[in-house]
C-alpha cells in the first residue's frame, strides 16, 4: 500500500481552524483516503473518508485535489478536546480492508 507523509506535530489555539495536510504521491486508483483520530488510551476513531474533491461531515472537511496526491483534513474551530493524534491512511478497500498507519500528526490545542 502507498505510503503517506504528514507533519509529526502541530499546535493550535482554541477556536482556530486547523488544517493537516497529508502527502500520498503514489496513491492507487482504487485507494480511498481515510482519516482517523486517536485520544490517549483509546482506540482510533474514524473521522472522515473521501475519494476526490471535497467531503464534509459534522466533524471535519476533507479536501482532495484533482491529482489526489495529497489531502487536507480541516477541523473548524478546534477545542481543547480535539487534542489527539490524527492519522491519514490510504486503501482499506477490498475484502481485506488492510490499513497501514503511519506515525500520525499529534495536534495540541492550547487555551
Amino acid at each position, binding site marked *: 500500500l502507498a505510503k503517506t507523509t504528514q507533519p509529526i506535530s502541530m499546535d493550535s489555539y482554541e477556536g482556530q481552524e486547523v488544517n493537516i495536510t497529508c502527502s500520498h504521491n503514489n496513491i492507487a486508483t482504487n485507494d*480511498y483516503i481515510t482519516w482517523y483520530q486517536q485520544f490517549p488510551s483509546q*482506540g*482510533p476513531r474514524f473521522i472522515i*473518508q473521501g475519494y476526490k474533491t471535497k467531503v464534509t461531515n459534522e466533524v471535519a472537511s476533507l479536501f482532495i485535489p484533482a491529482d489526489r496526491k495529497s489531502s487536507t483534513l480541516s477541523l473548524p474551530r478546534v477545542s481543547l478536546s480535539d487534542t489527539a493524534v490524527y492519522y491519514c491512511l490510504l486503501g482499506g*478497500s477490498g*475484502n481485506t480492508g*488492510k*490499513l497501514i498507519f503511519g506515525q500520525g500528526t499529534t495536534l495540541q490545542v492550547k487555551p
Partner: protein
Amino acid sequence: DTAVSQTPKYLVTQMGNDKSIKCEQNLGHDTMYWYKQDSKKFLKIMFSYNNKELIINETVPNRFSPKSPDKAHLNLHINSLELGDSAVYFCASRGLAVTDTQYFGPGTRLTVL
C-alpha cells in the same frame, strides 16, 4: 452498547506465561482485525479474519495465535510471553463494502515483567 469490546483492559504478567485477549463486536461485521501499538505509538496490523477465515497474517511470531470461534469474536492467544510483547493491542471490525471503515475497540494494555 459497546460496538467493539475487549477483555481484559489491562493485563500484567510474567515472562514465559501464556495469556489470551478476547474481542467481541456486535456490529454484524464479517471482518475483524488485531493491531499492536508499541511504546512509540506505531499501530501495526497483525491479523485479520473474514467470516472466521484468516485473510491477513503479517510477520508476527508464531507465539501469537488468533482464533475466531464465530464471526463476532476474534481472540488473541500469546504463548511464552516476552518483554517485547508489552504494548497496547487493539481489536477492530469492518463491514464488507469498499467504503466501510474500521471500528476499533478500547485496547488491552499488556505489560510483561
